[in-house]
């Protein structure tokens, strides 16, 4: 019985761990994206400079990683380092969920 309970707990834990994208709320991300789209354009798909990346449709886990790297200083950019500095872990999940859900023309080209 005890062993069965332990197995059940393990199963529940596994089921709840989910993919890396778990926990991001795209709608919440949109409301936090005002400052992002002032450079990356509407939906993150129309950057104001050719040196700024499109974000629309990009993988959410890549976007999360980029923001965390800026925050930690592992990736440096005068604009982005400052922008990422004040984001909470939830902000990062939400923003990544929002931009990855936007229609764009980023693709995997074979």
């Amino acid at each position: 019985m005890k062993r069965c309970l332990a197995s059940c707990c393990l199963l529940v834990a596994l089921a709840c761990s989910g993919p890396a994208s778990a926990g991001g709320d795209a709608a919440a991300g949109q409301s936090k994206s005002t400052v992002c789209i002032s450079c990356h354009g509407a939906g993150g798909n129309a950057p104001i400079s050719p040196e700024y990346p499109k974000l629309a449709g990009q993988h959410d886990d890549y976007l999360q990683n980029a923001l965390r790297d800026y925050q930690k200083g592992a990736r440096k950019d005068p604009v982005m380092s400052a922008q990422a500095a004040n984001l909470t872990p939830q902000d990062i999940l939400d923003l990544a969920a929002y931009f990855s859900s936007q229609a764009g023309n980023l693709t995997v080209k074979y």
Partner: protein
Amino acid sequence: MKTLLIIAITGLLCGSAFAVEGNAESAKGKISMCQGCHGIYDYKATFPKVYRVPMIAGQQSGYIAKALAAYKSGTRTQPNMRAIAESLSDQDIADLAAYYGSAK
């Protein structure tokens, strides 16, 4: 002497004007090392962190060139990308940026 100085300063100010022009057609012989990861749907980088590598086809060419230059100089540090970018010439970078930037 003065002329030399003026030429040198002008050269510095116009640095970006001398940037290499990319040719998407020439990139076709250089993309195999990119495609091994970026050409596979949902391919994941596995070291030092696990996440899907970015989709780069259709990305802004200026951004791709800037990213590759940053990996080459070491200011961006992902180990696989550093190793690859170190082997790229300025012409290679410009060609790859033109190729992926023009992808539809």
